[in-house]
């Protein structure tokens, strides 16, 4: 049995008075990809924000490799080994590509698999070509690669990807998919939030579906693929009448 990289137990999250997450639990095994699916407003991003500490869950615990991280400030959680590729990419537009990467440098080791500038540039040659350019002048796809590279520079033990395919052309989406597959091959533990369930299901080992802040399905990806009833009911985008 693989060890649990990230575990969420019964968390409740609020924005002011509105109750967004209701007793959500999840478990990510080391080296696997967990896809977090659901409609807009289902609570996927809130779930990610709770893990990184930008939203403080009111009840329940979150642990990284057995170590409790809920309640810690985001900078501490990040240093413990959680990397985030935020929704909408959120690169630093007035910093150069290289500066965007360098400020995220953390937890570097002698391991040949440890991420550093050279390895990021090897993974995304486009970023190397444009390293002196202001990140705000990159295309959407390049910004997504930069956001991914920036998260990897922190050598995360768990990588959180919040809608990496959002707003990208199909060719770029495929490239993002290939990159995630490559990271998975290297043994990176990943939580992948997606609206694009085809992409997510092609990469995920396990799937969790959220609906209005509650877990409505949790299980292996194979149980979701081909289960039209489940997809229609909770994701409801492909098979509408």
């Amino acid at each position, binding site marked *: 049995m693989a060890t649990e990289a990230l575990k969420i137990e019964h968390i409740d999250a609020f924005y002011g008075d509105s109750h967004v997450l209701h007793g959500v639990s999840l478990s990510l095994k080391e080296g696997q990809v967990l896809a977090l699916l659901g409609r807009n407003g289902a609570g996927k991003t809130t779930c990610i924000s709770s893990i990184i500490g*930008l939203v403080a869950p009111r009840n329940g615990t979150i642990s990284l490799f057995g170590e409790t991280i809920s309640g810690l400030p*985001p*900078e501490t959680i990040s240093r413990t080994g959680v990397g*985030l590729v935020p929704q909408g990419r959120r690169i*630093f*537009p007035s*910093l150069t590509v290289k500066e965007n990467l*360098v*400020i995220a440098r*953390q937890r570097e080791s002698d391991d040949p698999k440890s991420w550093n500038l050279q390895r990021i540039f090897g993974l995304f040659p486009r970023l190397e070509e444009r390293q002196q350019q202001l990140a705000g002048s990159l295309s959407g796809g390049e910004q997504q690669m930069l956001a991914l590279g920036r998260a990897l520079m922190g050598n995360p033990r768990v990588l959180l990807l919040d809608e990496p395919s959002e707003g990208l052309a199909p060719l770029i989406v495929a490239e993002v998919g290939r990159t995630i597959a490559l990271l998975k091959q290297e043994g990176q533990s990943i939580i992948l939030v997606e609206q694009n369930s085809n992409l997510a299901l092609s990469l995920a080992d396990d799937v969790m579906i959220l609906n209005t802040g509650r877990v409505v399905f949790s299980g292996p990806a194979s149980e979701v693929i081909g289960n039209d009833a489940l997809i229609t009911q909770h994701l409801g985008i492909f098979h509408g009448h």
Partner: protein
Amino acid sequence: MKQISGAIFLALLCVFPLFAGDFYINLASQILIAAIFAMSLNLLVGYGGLTSLGHASFLGFAAYASAWFTTQMGLGVGTAAVASIVATMVMAGLFGMIALRATGLGFLMITLALSQVLWGLAYRWVAVTNGDNGMSGLARPAPFGISLDSGANYYWFTLVVFVVAYWLMAIFVSSAFGSALRGTRDQARRMSALGHEVWMIRWITFIYAGFWGAVSGLLYVYYTKYIHPSSLSITASAEGLLSVIAGGSGTLGGPLVGSALLIILKNYASAYVERWNMLLGFVFLFIVLVLPEGIVPGLKRIFSRRQGGQS
């Protein structure tokens, strides 16, 4: 190309006193002092996204501290300078703890309030500050036995400090720490999600800006040999902020250009035009309308567009 023009400019600054009269030499000293002040404020405003309306606190406090240490405590000018800078940095540390509880307008209001407290003290605590009469009878330092009493010597002294200040602040903003600082300006939440302590980055910058503010305060008090509460006033803070914005915030050269414009208008134009404040207003209005990003980035934009059009 950039380095060559920079070197030529610096050489011109060095030989300037050889062919200029005392009035212009003194004007140039004032510009350099104001530029160090504006550059230190620019660290907060331009690179940190923290608009302060109380930066004169550092200039005024260091100036008063130096005056007090030399006249009341009998310290030498050099010792007093070090003590004043240290005291100002401690104060910056405390002010930063209070002001950095907020960003944006809140930060602006707190820095303004804190500087007004100092201004009030300078006016009312007559036993220490001599109130509205100010403190006079101050001396300039004499590094390596060289008297700085002549305008030209003092100009060269100021120029050396200016070059060092410019160089060290340039290193500061282009370092990894500087990138992190600009990151907190762009997306503070992202920076914390990347493992940076945003508050600490801002606090260190605040103290560093306070350090250079103190240096400009010392140069100022040596220059005037006199200190008055008005150097702690909101007008002094606002003039620094105007210089930064007019010259181009978040650029290295902007504060120098903005300060030069302000000091020249203030000293030179006021000799010919009685309502020079109005003239100042019009100039800034013009800048805001035509070069909203400031003179240095604005001219760069126009220049590069010209070049792009020709090729």
